[in-house]
């Protein structure tokens, strides 16, 4: 009889002691957690992208809960929904900032529009490739096309299509990870909406530009003349469009002989 009872008693005893010990320990050493913190943390998406300027979602939630900041709209991935939820929890008014998305300013890689100056067979990373004479593309400002932005995107919103990165608007949360990942600084965050952008950042003069890329901006100024809103300007032989003035009439796109302007 003891052969059966003893094991039961010992294992049961260990279990009981462990259980009681844990119960006592958790009661004695309970850490009071801030309820608002927990609730805010639940609202946040948990991407830990740092777009809010704090150390990840935990940091932002803590800052909000402890009153370090009252800005509810800092979470770019969460968007308007999260802003509203946080504002409701804190009892403040929701920030009404527009959603931002990443825009890529070079399509030279697409269907081999741009010339290359060498055959690169090294590590498949734009940053590494840039170390070698600034990348294999002939244009010094062009996309290297090895997809660092795609790898850095925590939301899989960037895919490589025909050699060029493409941002999927509906998936992009505007966290800005890709902006930092691009060694050529070809990505910027812009307010999401129906506006036109220039798909080139080449600062080469017109003639040099025409030789190496089919879709480059040569700074000819046709789009500046075509735009009735005065939203287009040319700096360093490259056009830029001010998205706050753009009404998406499409005249700049029609005017551009180089196919360098497209909808966002």
């Amino acid at each position, binding site marked *: 009889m003891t052969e059966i009872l*003893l*094991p039961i008693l*010992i*294992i049961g005893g*260990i279990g009981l002691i*462990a259980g009681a010990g844990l119960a006592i320990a*958790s009661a004695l050493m309970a850490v009071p957690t801030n309820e608002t913190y927990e609730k805010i943390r639940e609202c946040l998406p948990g991407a830990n992208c740092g777009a809010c300027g704090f150390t990840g979602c935990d940091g932002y939630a803590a800052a909000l809960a402890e009153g370090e900041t009252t800005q509810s709209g800092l979470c770019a991935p969460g968007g308007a929904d999260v802003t509203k939820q946080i504002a409701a929890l804190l009892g403040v008014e929701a920030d009404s900032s527009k959603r931002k998305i990443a825009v890529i300013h070079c399509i030279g890689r697409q269907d081999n529009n741009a010339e290359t100056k060498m055959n690169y067979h090294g590590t498949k*990373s734009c940053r590494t490739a840039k170390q070698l004479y600034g990348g294999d593309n002939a244009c010094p400002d062009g996309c290297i096309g090895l997809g660092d932005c795609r790898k850095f995107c925590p939301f899989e919103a960037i895919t490589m299509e025909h050699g060029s990165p493409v941002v999927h608007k509906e998936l992009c949360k505007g966290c800005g990870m890709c902006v930092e990942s691009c060694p050529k600084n070809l990505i910027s965050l812009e307010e999401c909406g129906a506006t036109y952008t220039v798909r080139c950042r080449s600062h080469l003069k017109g003639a040099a530009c025409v030789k190496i890329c089919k879709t480059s901006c040569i700074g000819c100024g046709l789009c500046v003349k075509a735009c009735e809103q005065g939203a287009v300007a040319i700096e360093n032989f490259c056009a830029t469009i001010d998205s706050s003035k753009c009404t998406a009439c499409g005249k700049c796109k029609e005017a551009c002989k180089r196919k360098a302007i497209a909808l966002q």
Partner: protein
Amino acid sequence: MSYMLGVLVLSIFAENFVLSQFLGICPFLGVSKRLNTAVGMSVAVIFVMVLATAVTYPLFAYVLEPNNLGYLQTIAFILIIAALVQLVEIVLKKYIPSLYKALGIYLPLITTNCAVLGVTLLHFTKGYSYGIALVNAFGSGIGFLVAMVLFAGVRERLESCDIPKFLQGLPITLIAAAIVSLSFMGFSGIANGLIGG
């Protein structure tokens, strides 16, 4: 002293838990993607291995063994280790929040880790004394760290390689793990010389 040192080296290299005894493969493949998570997990494993040994060894020697209940060691140890890890988590959360933040997410993973259970069980088959068992546990933890750091390095290299499509992901990882493990088999030759001397 030299015996102790021998056991330490043995447990790190020749009897490496992951690469020679194939225990704890799950975190080895799961958490080795980035170097910093690999190190975090390994430090937590070292901590728990030593602590678990410190508690389970006396339990076996003074409670189970005298009552001829050696066969209960597996279930009893699982119980003890699980409770212990929970306790450690509570204590860390209260008194050392910074360490809790660093180890916190890995502790629950370790609760049912077979490497931790293995280390506590294997002391008795090898007949180690209490002190040597603690050294062995520490060494096994270090061995886990070595394996994780090595493999994290290998995997970070693999990320930037041009891998054939049918090998991408887990297949190439398993092949790489096998090769790393093969290299550790080389240490088994020195095992006898170390302990025997």
